[in-house]
C-alpha cells in the first residue's frame, strides 16, 4: 500500500469528519486470499475426536519479527510454517520440520523456562506435549527434568499464568469427553487439570472438578483487582444437563458459586475472546456457541451482563447464503483490522460435522465496530466470509505492514491465509512487552494506551482463550488519525509505570525503566 495515500486519506477524513478519531473507512475493509502462501495443503482432519479442536499457535520462533504458525492437523499432520513475508509484501510461508505428533487438537505458545525462546504447549487427544523452543524455529521435547505430566485425556483447551513469585508458569488444561467412560459420551465430561511449577520444574497435576467438557479456558484479571481467575467455557452438547460456565479462583483453588454472584449460565461454549471494548478498562467477553454468540459486558464488581441484541454481535444465523439454520461459532478474537482505534471481532464458524440442526454452509464473521460501539457484519464485503468448517484462527500482522491479517484453520478444508489490504486504514503500533528474568513476556500485564483525545485502549496480556488457538506476538493497537499516544503498563506483580510517549506505526519493545519509567525501543515498522 502507498503510505502517502493512506496519510492523505486520514487527513481528508480528519478534516471532514466531526469525530477526529474516525480515520479508517470501515466499508473499505478488505482482505486478499493468500492461501497459496502455504506450501502444502494443511487441514484439520479426523473422526469424532477431531470434531472439536483445530487450533493455530502463532509465535515468532526465529526472532525475525515475522510471526510463524504451528497448525494442528488432528489425524492429519500438524505442521510448522515459517513466515517468509517481506515487509509490506505478499504473505509467504515455508514449511519447517517439527517433531511429528499425532492427534493434535491445538497449541499455545509461551516461554516456559524463561530462556527467551517461545515454547509450544501442544494439546492432543492423548498425552499433551511441551515442545521446547531452541531458537531458529527448532523445537525439541521438553527435557525430563521439567517433570511435565501431559496426562492421557482428550485435551481441548488451555490457559497459563505466572502466579506470585513463581519463575515458571502455572498451566491449566481443559479436557473434553472421557472416552473411557462406558456410560458416555454424554454426561461423561472429563476433569480438567492445573499444573503448578515447583521451582524450575512442574509439580503434580491438580484436578479441577467437576469438569464440563471445556472447549476454552482463559486466566484473566477480569475484575481488574490484581487477582486473576480462570474462566472455563463448556460445551453443553456433552455435559447435557448438570453443567455450567465456570470461573475458578486460583488461590485458594475453588470454583465461583452462585452465592458469590456467579450466575449459572449454560452454553454450547466453544471459544472465549476477551477485550475491553467499552473503554472502562474492564474486559468484556465473547463466548462462542451454537446460535447466539454471546457478548457480555463487564459491569464491574464481578458482574457480567449479556449485551443487548442491538450491539450486533450475536451472529445467530449465517449472514449470507441460503442456509437459514443457526450458526456454530468456534474461535473468537478481537482486533482492530482497520486501525480506526476501535476493536473489531472475528468469529470462526462452521458445522461440527454433520449436525442437521445447524447451518452446513456457515460463513465466518468479521464484525466491524462502529463509532457508537455497535458492530456491523463485513465478512462478505471484506472477502473472508468463507463457508467451510472453521475452527481455530488468529488475527496477526504477518507481513509487518501494521494491518492485522487473518489465519483460519478448517476442519476437512484447507487452511486459509488472508492478507489485510484495507485502504485508508489508520495509524497503529504494536508493543512487545519484556521483563528481565522469568515471565519474560510479561504475561498478566495490563497495557493502557492513551490517545490524544483522552480515550484509553486497555489490553491484557494473556495466554489462553480462543478455540485451541493462541498467539504470543506484540500487542497490536489501532490509533485512528493519531500518530502519537502514551503508554502505561501495570506489570504482572502490580507495579504501575508512568505514562510514556510512544510513536505510531512501529513495533516497540516495552520494558520496565528506571523508577516508574518505561524503556521503549523500536523493533520494526516504518522509521
Amino acid at each position, binding site marked *: 500500500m502507498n503510505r502517502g495515500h493512506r496519510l492523505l486519506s486520514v487527513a481528508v477524513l480528519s478534516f471532514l469528519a466531526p469525530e477526529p478519531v474516525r480515520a479508517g473507512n470501515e466499508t473499505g475493509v478488505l482482505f486478499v486470499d493468500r492461501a497459496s502462501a502455504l506450501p502444502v495443503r494443511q487441514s484439520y482432519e479426523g*473422526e*469424532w475426536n477431531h*470434531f472439536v479442536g483445530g487450533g493455530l499457535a502463532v509465535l515468532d520462533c526465529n526472532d525475525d519479527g515475522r510471526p510463524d504458525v504451528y497448525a494442528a492437523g488432528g489425524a492429519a499432520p500438524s505442521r510448522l510454517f515459517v513466515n517468509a513475508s517481506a515487509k509490506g509484501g505478499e504473505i509467504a510461508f515455508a514449511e519447517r520440520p517439527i517433531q511429528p505428533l499425532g492427534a493434535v487438537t491445538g497449541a499455545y505458545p509461551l516461554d516456559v523456562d524463561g530462556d527467551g525462546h517461545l515454547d509450544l504447549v501442544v494439546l492432543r487427544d492423548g498425552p499433551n506435549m511441551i515442545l521446547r523452543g531452541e531458537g531458529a524455529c527448532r523445537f525439541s521435547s521438553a527435557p525430563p527434568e521439567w517433570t511435565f505430566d501431559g496426562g492421557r485425556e482428550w485435551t481441548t483447551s488451555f490457559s497459563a499464568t505466572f502466579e506470585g513469585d513463581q519463575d515458571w508458569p502455572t498451566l491449566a488444561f481443559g479436557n473434553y469427553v472421557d472416552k473411557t467412560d462406558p*456410560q*458416555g*459420551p*454424554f*454426561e461423561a465430561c472429563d476433569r480438567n487439570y492445573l499444573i503448578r511449577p515447583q521451582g524450575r520444574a512442574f509439580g503434580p497435576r491438580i484436578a479441577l472438578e467437576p469438569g464440563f467438557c471445556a472447549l476454552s479456558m482463559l486466566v484473566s484479571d477480569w475484575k481488574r483487582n490484581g487477582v486473576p481467575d480462570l474462566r472455563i467455557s463448556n460445551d*453443553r*452438547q456433552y455435559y*447435557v444437563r448438570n453443567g455450567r460456565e465456570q470461573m475458578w479462583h486460583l488461590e485458594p483453588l475453588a470454583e465461583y458459586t452462585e452465592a458469590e454472584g456467579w450466575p449459572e449460565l449454560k*452454553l*454450547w461454549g466453544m471459544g472465549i475472546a476477551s477485550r475491553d471494548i467499552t473503554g472502562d478498562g474492564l474486559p468484556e467477553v465473547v463466548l462462542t*456457541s*451454537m*446460535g*447466539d454468540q454471546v457478548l457480555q459486558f463487564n459491569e464491574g464488581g464481578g458482574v457480567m451482563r449479556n449485551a443487548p441484541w442491538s450491539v450486533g454481535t450475536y451472529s445467530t*444465523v*449465517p449472514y*449470507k*447464503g*441460503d*442456509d*437459514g*439454520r*443457526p450458526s456454530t461459532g468456534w474461535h473468537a478474537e478481537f482486533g482492530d483490522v482497520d486501525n480506526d482505534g476501535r476493536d473489531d471481532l472475528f468469529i470462526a464458524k462452521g*458445522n*461440527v*460435522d*454433520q*449436525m*442437521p*440442526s*445447524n447451518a*452446513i*454452509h456457515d460463513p465466518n464473521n468479521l464484525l466491524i465496530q462502529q463509532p457508537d460501539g455497535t458492530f456491523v457484519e463485513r465478512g462478505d464485503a471484506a472477502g473472508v466470509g468463507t463457508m467451510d468448517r472453521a475452527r481455530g484462527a488468529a488475527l496477526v500482522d504477518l507481513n509487518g505492514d501494521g494491518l492485522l491479517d487473518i489465519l483460519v484453520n478448517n476442519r476437512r478444508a484447507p487452511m486459509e491465509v488472508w492478507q489485510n489490504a484495507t485502504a485508508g486504514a489508520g495509524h497503529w503500533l504494536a508493543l512487545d512487552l519484556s521483563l528481565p528474568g522469568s515471565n519474560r513476556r510479561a504475561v498478566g500485564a495490563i497495557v493502557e494506551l492513551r490517545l490524544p483525545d483522552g480515550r484509553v485502549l486497555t489490553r491484557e496480556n494473556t495466554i489462553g482463550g480462543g478455540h485451541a488457538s493462541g498467539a504470543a506476538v506484540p500487542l497490536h493497537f489501532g490509533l485512528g488519525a493519531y500518530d502519537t499516544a502514551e503508554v502505561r503498563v501495570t506489570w504482572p506483580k502490580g507495579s504501575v509505570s508512568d505514562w510514556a510517549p510512544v510513536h505510531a506505526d512501529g513495533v516497540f519493545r516495552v520494558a520496565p525503566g528506571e523508577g516508574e519509567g518505561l524503556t521503549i525501543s523500536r523493533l520494526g515498522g516504518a522509521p
Partner: protein
Amino acid sequence: MTGLRRILAGVTVPLALLCAVSSGVRAQPAVTLPEPLTDADFPSHPQAEIDLGRLLFWDPVLSGNRNISCATCHHPRLGTSDGLSLGIGEGGRGVGPDRKPDPADYPEQRIPRNAPGLWNVGARGFTVLFADGRIEVDPGRPTGFRTPLEDEMVSGFASLLSAQTMFPVLSSDEMAGHYEENDISTLVRQGRLTGPGGAWAAIAARVAAIPVYRQMFSAAYRDIAAGREIDFADISNAIAAYMTFDFRSDSAPFDARLRGERRLSPQAEAGMSLFYGKAGCSACHSGPLLTDMKFHAMGDPQIGPGKAERFENHQRDTGRMKVSNNPSEAFAFRTPSLRNVTLTPPYGHAGAYRDLRAYLMQHSDPGSALNTYSVSDAILPGLELGKPDFAPGDGGADFNAIAAAAAAAPRHVLVAAEIEDILAFLKSLEDPVAVAGGRMGIPDAVPSGLEIDG
C-alpha cells in the same frame, strides 16, 4: 417433466356446459380445472420392493429405541396422519388421540409441526417435501436437490421421497431417541450420520441382521442378491416405493370430475366454483395435487415448541426462512396438498385447528384469528413440559411477527354458506381408497418381531 407441464397448464372447463344436462343446477361461471392424475404421474415399483417397504414402514426397528415406526404418526386409520395437532414421537405409547407419554422414556417436547398426510407424496409432481421444503428439487444445486446435509448427502436414494424418508430416523424427538439411550441416538447427537460409523449405517446393520429382511432385500434388489451390503438408502427406497403405491390417491369423486366422468353434488360443484373462482383457493392449491409447491405466509396460529433447537430459547417457527435464510419468506409454509383433507385433522402447520370449518374461516382472512385464538381448538395429548404450548409473545411463537408476515396475503372474506360449499367440495377430495386406509392394510407382524402400532 411432461406430466408437470401438463399439470401446470391446466384446462379450462365451462362448468355451466357440463352442468347443463341436469336440472336445477345453479349457473356456474367457467373455471379452470387441472388435468387428472394418471399412471404417468407415479413411478412404478416391483411388488417385491413394495412388500419390503410396507414392512419397514411398520417396523419400529428403524427407531433408536425400537418403539416407534413411520406408521405410528402416519397411520392409515388416521388418514396417514395421527389425528393430533402436534404429535408425540419417540417416547409415546399408543396411536392417535390415545397416544400417551411413556413415563419410563418421557418425551422432551412435542413434535413441532403437524404430521402431514402422505397421500400422493410419491407423485412426480411432489417436488417439495416437509412444510419448509428442506428437502426439495432445486435445479440451482449441483446435485439437483436440497437436503439438510447439503453436499454431505449420501448417494443411492432413488427419489426425492426416498431422500425425505432418510431424515425422520435421525430426529431425536421423532424416531432416534435422546442422548445415550441407544446406539442411534448417540451417533445422531454426536453429529455422526453418514459413512460406516454413522447413524444410517447403524440402522441398516440392524435391518440386515434380520434374516427375513435379508431375503426380502435380495428379492427386491438384484445387486444385494449379488452380495452388496444393505445400505440405508435401500431401506428408504423401499419405503418410498411402498408409500408411492399404497398412498396413491386418485380415485376420489374429484378425480372422476377431473376425468369428466361424473359431476359432483350441486353444493360441491358450487364449492368448486368458489375454490377455482372468487375464493382464490386455487391460486395456491393448484394442479391435481392441489398445491403449487410454493411457500406462503398465511398467518396460522402456531402452538407448541416451534422450530427451536435445544440451544435456543424461543418458540418460533419461521418456516421456510429457516431453510432459505431469506427474510421475505418468514413464517411461510409450503402449500399443503388437500387430498383427503377431511381425513387429516387437525389443520395448519402446527395443527392449531381441530375443525376444518374454523380453519377455513380464518384461512380466508389470513392472520385474523391470531388475537382470539384459543389452544382449546387444538388436540394435544397431555404432556408435562418445560415450555407452554401457547406462547404468543415475542419470546415465544411471536404472533405479532406472524401477523406482520401475513399482512400481504390475499383476503377473501366468505359468507357462511360459501364456507359450507367449499367444505362440500373438499369432501369430494376424499378417496374411498384413503378412507379404507390405503390398499394393503396393516401387516399382522413385522420381521423384527417388535410390536406394531396397529
